[in-house]
Structure formats: structure tokens, C-alpha cells
């Protein structure tokens, strides 16, 4: 008999390449195999229901909603303005502001596209006005927004935590240093290119202006303290912190800035609801897919197959990362977690790898996937904002992807980068 796993995964990839929506491309093979192997197809509805109805997953809709609220409320504008006065004037300064803005907004929002939109709508036009190439500006913001996936809060870590039964708070803390590292790695090519082309920045702010800008940006500046301080002060669970972040954003947008009216609110809730659903329906059916695969014993055998290639953990790590980079080019992070984690978890046990470090490594990989075509959500969002063809943006993204890959190598081979902070904070 041929290996059913090859058929299961083969059917999935076939449907994927034919352009079938990912939720269907994972759902149909699952149903077909549950049916043919008599694995209890009647549990389908209960399984799909249970995959969504998990309390920790509730952090996802609320962090997505919080990101939309803070973006539309205009919290990013004040932050960018402040950064601009501090580092903007040096040569290549606006590139620094773009990276810094994305990293900081990453501590407010939970997904890369939200970060791209929040910083991109402010920074891309500003950079173009100062003579920066529009493709460069869009590619830089898209690449810098990948740090959002690592810097807490992070929707990706919530899903990884739920699947692997790892503490989400610990994952959040572990993402901080790698996220900052990615930001730093991006600064090198960004500033080098900007200087080479003589792209500049704004004028320096006087101390008085800087103080004023900081005061104006105060609501954005304290938002991460509210969200992350709440989690690490032991006040909130990640889900509760997400709810509080939504309320904080609504308060600032409706009462303080008065930039949000009831009509905006309707649009924000609707957009956040649909973004949530697009993620969660994949979670629902990908969960069914991985349950089917595990029940068939496919996942264990695939893991054995991987181990058969080499017993050397470093070789396996290299292979895994190549596999994840390719997967990240074709799929979104959530699908990759559900489809591949059941195969990878036995490897973690075998090599006694730390699941938190492994989660960070995997997430950096998949974050890079959001700027590598053909499936590259951040590039799409940025090219929409910049009104520039995606091919043009992708061309400029090449040096940034290489810089992010360098950061990835460090994260892979120096686990302390991920584990130092959570250990220091004593987060379990």
C-alpha cells in the first residue's frame, strides 16, 4: 500500500497550486481521508467548532480589532512625528524613522499587515515627498512590519502557543529581542541605500519641539506599556490585554483625538471581523486537516522520514529552515503552523529543543514569508498604499529580505537571543 500521507499532502498542495482557497485546500483532503479510512467523518462539525471555540484564541480577534482601531485613530502619526525630530534629519533618516515606527507600532498591533498599513500610510508619502524612490519606501515599510509578528503582542504566537501548549506570555517575551534584531538588520541596507542615493530627511527639532512632539504622541507612547505592562505585571492574560487594548484605542480615538465617529466604528468592526474570519476559518479546517493526519499516523511517519535524512541536529535545522522559507513563500503563517507543526513536534522531543525558541525561529521564518512573493501580504498592502506595482516593490525588497535572513540565522544558532528575556523576567 502506498503511504496515505503522501496522498493527503499531495492533494493539499495540488489544490493549493490550482488556486483553491486555502481553507478548502486543507478541508477537502481532510474530509476525503476521514471518509475513505472510516475515521469518523461525523465528528467534522464538532471538530471544526472546537478548533475555533478555544478561549486563548480569543486574543486573535481582539488584537486584530485593536490594530485596526489604533491605526484608524491615527496613533501612528504622533509616533512618527516624534521619531522624525529625533533621527529624521540625518542622511537616510526617514528610512530609520520608518523602521523605528514599524518596530514601535509592533508593540501595539498584533499582525504585520496592520503595521504596514499604520506606518505605511504616514511614512510612504512622506518619504516620496523627500525624494525617496516609492518602491524603496514601500518595500522598507513592508519589511520592517515583519518585526510586528515577533514583537508582542503577536497573533502568530497565540496560534503557536495554542497548538503546542506553550505559554503565550513566554512566547511574547521571547519575541522581543529577535524582533529588535530584525529591525537593526534592516537599518543597515536601508541607510546604506538611502545614503548612496543621497536621500535625506527633515530638519532637526529643537528640544522644545521634541518635548512637544513627545507630549502629542503620549497616547501612542503609553499604549505598549498598557498592553505589555498588563501582561507582565501579572494583571492580564494575553486575551484580556487584547480586550483592554481595544478599549484603550476606542477611548483615545473617540474621546481624546475625536478622530473616530460611529460610522468609522462600524467600518472598523466590520473590517476586523472579516480579517478575523479569514484567519479563523483556516484555523478551523487546518485543525481538521492536522487531526486527520495525526489519526492516520502520517505526521509521526513524516517526522521519522525527516530524521532518516540525518541524525545531526544542525543539518536537520538547516533543512527545516529551508522547508519553512519555501512554505512561507506559498502559505500564510497560521496554515503552516497547523499543517507542519504536527510533523515537527516529534523532532523537538527527539533533539530536546526548547519549544519557545523553536516557535520564535519558526515565526521569524514565516514573518520573512510575508515579504517574499508570490504570497506576500505585507508587500501587497504596501504596494496598495504606494500605488506602485507589486513587482517594483518586490525588486526593492531583495536587500531587506537578505538582511532579515541574516537575523534569522542568528536566531537559529543562538537560542539565548530568544530565551534570555523570558528567563530574565521569569515568565513561565
Amino acid at each position, binding site marked *: 500500500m502506498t503511504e496515505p500521507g503522501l496522498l493527503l499532502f499531495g492533494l493539499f498542495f495540488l*489544490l*493549493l*497550486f*490550482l*488556486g*483553491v*482557497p*486555502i*481553507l*478548502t*485546500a486543507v*478541508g*477537502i483532503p481532510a*474530509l476525503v481521508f476521514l471518509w475513505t479510512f472510516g475515521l469518523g467523518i*461525523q*465528528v*467534522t*462539525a*464538532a471538530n*471544526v*467548532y472546537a478548533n*475555533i*471555540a*478555544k*478561549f486563548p*484564541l*480569543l486574543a486573535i*480577534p*481582539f488584537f486584530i*480589532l485593536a490594530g485596526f482601531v489604533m491605526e484608524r485613530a491615527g496613533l501612528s502619526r504622533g509616533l512618527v512625528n516624534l521619531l522624525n525630530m529625533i533621527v529624521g534629519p540625518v542622511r537616510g533618516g526617514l528610512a530609520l524613522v520608518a523602521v523605528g515606527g514599524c518596530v514601535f507600532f509592533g508593540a501595539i498591533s498584533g499582525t504585520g499587515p496592520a503595521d504596514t498599513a499604520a506606518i505605511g500610510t504616514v511614512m510612504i508619502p512622506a518619504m516620496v515627498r523627500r525624494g525617496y524612490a516609492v518602491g524603496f519606501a514601500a518595500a522598507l515599510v513592508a519589511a520592517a512590519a515583519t518585526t510586528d509578528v515577533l514583537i508582542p503582542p503577536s497573533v502568530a504566537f497565540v496560534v503557536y502557543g495554542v497548538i503546542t501548549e506553550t505559554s503565550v506570555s513566554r512566547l511574547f517575551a521571547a519575541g522581543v529581542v529577535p524582533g529588535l534584531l530584525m529591525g537593526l538588520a534592516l537599518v543597515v541596507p536601508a541607510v546604506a541605500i538611502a545614503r548612496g542615493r543621497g536621500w535625506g530627511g527633515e530638519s532637526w527639532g529643537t528640544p522644545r519641539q521634541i518635548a512637544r512632539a513627545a507630549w502629542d504622541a503620549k497616547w501612542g507612547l503609553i499604549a505598549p506599556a498598557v498592553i505589555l505592562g498588563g501582561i507582565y505585571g501579572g*494583571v*492580564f492574560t494575553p*486575551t*484580556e490585554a487584547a*480586550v*483592554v487594548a*481595544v*478599549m484603550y484605542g476606542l477611548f483615545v480615538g473617540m474621546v481624546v483625538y475625536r478622530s473616530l465617529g460611529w460610522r468609522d466604528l*462600524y467600518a472598523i*468592526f*466590520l473590517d*476586523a*471581523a*472579516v*480579517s*478575523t*474570519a*479569514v484567519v*479563523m*476559518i*483556516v484555523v*478551523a*479546517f487546518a485543525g481538521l486537516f492536522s487531526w486527520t493526519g495525526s489519526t492516520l499516523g502520517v505526521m509521526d511517519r513524516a517526522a521519522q522520514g525527516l530524521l532518516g535524512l540525518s541524525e545531526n541536529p544542525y543539518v536537520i535545522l538547516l533543512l527545516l529552515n529551508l522547508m519553512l522559507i519555501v512554505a512561507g513563500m*506559498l*502559505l*500564510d503563517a497560521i*496554515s503552516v503552523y497547523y499543517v507542519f507543526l504536527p510533523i515537527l513536534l516529534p523532532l523537538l522531543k527527539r533533539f530536546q529543543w526548547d519549544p519557545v525558541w523553536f516557535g520564535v525561529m519558526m515565526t521569524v521564518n514565516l514573518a520573512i514569508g510575508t515579504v517574499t*512573493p*508570490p*504570497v506576500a501580504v505585507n508587500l501587497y498592502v504596501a504596494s496598495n498604499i504606494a500605488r506602485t506595482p507589486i513587482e517594483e516593490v518586490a525588486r526593492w525588497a531583495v536587500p531587506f529580505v537578505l538582511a532579515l535572513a541574516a537575523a534569522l540565522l542568528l536566531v537559529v544558532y543562538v537560542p539565548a537571543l530568544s530565551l534570555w528575556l523570558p528567563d530574565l523576567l521569569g515568565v513561565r
Partner: protein
Amino acid sequence: MRRVTDRLEEGACVLVFAVMTLVAFVNVVTRYLIQYSLAFTEEIVVSLFVWLTLLGTAVAFREGTHLAFTFLVDRAPRPARWAALGLSTALSLALFLALIWFGLLQIQNERLLGTTSEALAIPQWWYTAGIPVVGVLVVARILQGAWRAARRLDR
């Protein structure tokens, strides 16, 4: 009328999401103030989450915004694109029709066994009902989305 049927699940999305947010926020506040978590609110929010997911799924099918790898299909000749659209539509329909069918079986079982929810002890099938009810809406939107995509291909 057209507008109402077109916007049906959009309004429902906003309403469900707003209720989820409010209930979850009240739960945070009460837990903080009286050191006591209202466990039943968790149950409500989590089951509304399932409804929200399906409602938003319907909207995304209509707008054609579900995640997909369309790189190859977008570059294929027209007949191949028609075939791919047909395949996507047929399989997505099959998936949700199966989900509705097994959802109905599930409800039948839950009613037979008298299963009640953990925290509120109300019949479990009230929650499960979201799957077939909103599922029908999803099926309608799959067809509507396919119709829209076909008209774009026609041009």
C-alpha cells in the same frame, strides 16, 4: 431590499463582534474589581466567536478575499482560469454542504442526548445551530462570489 440582503451578515458581524468585545471587557473589569471571573461570560464569548467566524467567512467569500495561492492561476490562459474557478467553487460548496450536513447530525445527537453547555447549562445545540444556519449563508455567498469572479473573467 437588495441592499438589505447584501449587507445582512455585515450588520450581524458588527453586532456580534461588538457584543463579544463588551462582554469580554466587562469580564476583565469584574475579575479585576471583585477577583472573581464570571465563567459563563467566557462561554458566551467563545460561542459568539464561532458565529463571527462563519459570518465573516460569508462576507469574505462574496468579496473573494479568502487566502489563496493564485500566482499560477492568474498567469494561466483563460480556459484554465475558468476551470480553476469552477473547481474552487465546486469544492468550497462541497466543503460547506458537508459541514452543514454534519452540523445537523450533531444537533440531532445533542438533542437526543440532551447535552447541555458547561457553564450556563443551556442546550448545547443552541450554540451548534450556528454551523448550519450561517453555513447556508456561506453557501449563498460562495455562489455569489463565483458569479462576480465569472463576470470579471468574462471581460
